[in-house]
């Protein structure tokens, strides 16, 4: 095994382990902590794919900022009593298992059953695509319109958050 493979497999094992622990844990705060571990491992996996920018942004935005939101939601929903949550999720469980199986079959299909193109091969241009310079260059030239639209998306999110959380206007 090469160094890359060792890094990939060790990260993959920890990622799968922490993902399972997120679902299995009874205490939502423990789930959130495992999710942080999961995000860090995913960041490492992005690094093995030469996507440095995505890796660091993933850790900054997801492990840093989105996790804060998850913890806030746990606090706001007041999930201290974990027993209340159990025994009401039967239908959700069935749907979840069905979707999970469908996704698994799709993955198997993509990984080389009956397809001509395998996703396990890396694109020859991959080493340079992930760098911050390359992303900046294409983002501000070729994908200029999606970038500008993002600002409207963020604006809509800001207004939505304010309207949802702040009913009365203060003067």
């Amino acid at each position, binding site marked *: 095994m090469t*160094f*890359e493979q060792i*890094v990939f497999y060790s990260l993959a094992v920890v990622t799968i382990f922490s993902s399972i622990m997120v679902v299995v844990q009874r205490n939502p705060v423990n789930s959130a902590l495992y999710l942080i571990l999961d995000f860090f491992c995913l960041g490492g996996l992005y*690094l*093995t794919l030469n996507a440095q*920018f995505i890796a660091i*942004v993933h850790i*900054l*935005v997801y492990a*840093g*900022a*989105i996790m*804060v*939101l998850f913890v*806030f*939601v746990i*606090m*706001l929903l*007041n*999930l*201290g009593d974990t027993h209340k949550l159990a025994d009401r999720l039967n239908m959700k469980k069935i749907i979840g298992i069905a979707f999970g199986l469908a996704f698994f079959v799709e993955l198997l299909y993509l990984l080389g059953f009956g397809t001509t193109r395998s996703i396990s091969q890396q694109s020859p241009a991959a080493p340079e695509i992930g760098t*911050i*310079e390359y*992303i*900046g*260059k294409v*983002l*501000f*030239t070729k994908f*200029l319109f999606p*970038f*500008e639209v*993002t*600002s*409207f998306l*963020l*604006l809509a*999110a*800001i*207004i939505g*958050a*304010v309207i949802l*959380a*702040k009913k009365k*206007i*203060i*003067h």
Partner: protein
Amino acid sequence: MASYIPIFLMIGIGLFLGIVFLTLHKILGPSRPNPEKLSTYESGVPPVHNARDRFSIKYYMVAVLFILFDIEVVFLYPWAVNFRALGLFGYIEMLLFIVILFVGYFYIWKKGALQWD
């Protein structure tokens, strides 16, 4: 991949030191627990009730708005790296982006969403 070895080394040493200090404390430190020591520390005041209480939406508000502007800052990095190459055109693009988000900031400000009353 090999260029990341220093980063992994840093993470590894950080983890290692954390584990070493915790185990050293476990081995060497005296352990004489009593109810006062085991109770939740709340700035020296005796804890009133369970910490798992409902929190005000104001905290969530600040967190959500922080994330939205955090994403804005993420877009600034690739722009800053290519600042010279993109020139005036890139500058105007980013100005447009920031102005649109500034409208959002102005809205938050005027709406008093960051006020803590």
